């Protein structure tokens, strides 16, 4: 007689536990959905140079929205209308996995530890744009993105009205060839 009474109780506890666990992890799930819902957003990007109002090597989010390239760092936003972009080209590079001030300090570590750490590198993509300001003066900007994102960003920019001398397909083919050579 007690068994059926205990069963729903156990079920209730299980349900409560699953709800609690689910409630404990809502934000990353939502964040993942947010970035998935906006495929034109590229977090963990870096503005190497060229955007007004931002220092060199500023990390932030690069996105393509409402016909513009937008780079966001906290409350600071730099906007470049896609129609003013006259050239978009991508490339590949690597950077130290441990970078920044800590990375620099490790160079002075004893027994060549800094040099050893320099061997650990992360592959990155580069995105370079040449654009005109409203007066018609030429500007340039260089970004780094996570590996595999630059061509997507370029495609998105071209879709919004940017121009290029090298089509996406040609760059993708060249990148694939390079990858094949390395393998």
């Amino acid at each position, binding site marked *: 007689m007690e068994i059926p009474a205990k069963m729903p109780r156990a079920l209730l506890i299980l349900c409560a536990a699953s709800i609690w666990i689910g409630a404990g992890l809502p934000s990353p799930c939502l964040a993942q959905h947010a970035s998935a819902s906006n495929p034109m957003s590229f977090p963990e990007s870096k503005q190497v140079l060229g955007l007004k109002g931002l220092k060199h090597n500023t990390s932030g989010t690069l996105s393509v929205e409402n016909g513009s390239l937008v780079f966001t760092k906290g409350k600071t936003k730099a906007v470049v209308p896609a129609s003013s972009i006259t050239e978009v080209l991508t490339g590949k590079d690597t950077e130290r996995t441990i970078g920044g001030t800590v990375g620099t300090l490790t160079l002075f570590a004893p027994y060549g530890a800094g040099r050893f750490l320099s061997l650990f590198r992360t592959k990155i993509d580069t995105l370079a744009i040449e654009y005109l300001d409203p007066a*018609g003066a030429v500007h340039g900007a260089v970004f780094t993105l996570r590996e595999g994102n630059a061509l997507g960003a370029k495609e998105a920019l071209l879709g919004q009205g940017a121009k290029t001398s090298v089509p996406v397909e040609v760059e993708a083919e060249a990148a694939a060839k390079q990858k094949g050579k390395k393998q």
Partner: protein
Amino acid sequence: MNRSACSIALLSLAPILLFLRGSASAEEKTQPKIQASAIQILMVQSEEVELPIEFRLALYENLVEQIQKVNKFQHVYRDGDPAAADSDLVILHSNVYGFKKGSEEKRQVTTVSGATSINVHCLFTDKAGKSELAQDVTGKVRFMGGNLRATYDFAKKVAQVVEKNFQ
């Protein structure tokens, strides 16, 4: 004997060297500085060598930034700026004639190899195209920093040229 001969030779050369140094510095002093209230920096060209676009843009952007910092001109115009119409405008043409892309990894691991260098011919002209000053400048990164740091080094050197030659 040999020692004394050497010392005599050095002593006899000393006044000549001093004279040469003096005349060189006098030449430097007498060289008139170029007067201009505005400069227009044209986009960097690379007809002789293949230069990746990120380097070309970084050279140009760093040039604009560093020449603005020198504070020798009232206006620093970019390429294509229609406002660049000052009567004493100087135009800076930069043409890359040498480029060696190194490797940041090699530099950090070995410290002796992997340097990046960019050789640029800089030409300052007036509005009519008459040459005012021409100089070859090399940007390098040997140890610290990424490959694009060579473009910063180049721009700093051009800024020094501007500082030295413009009023």
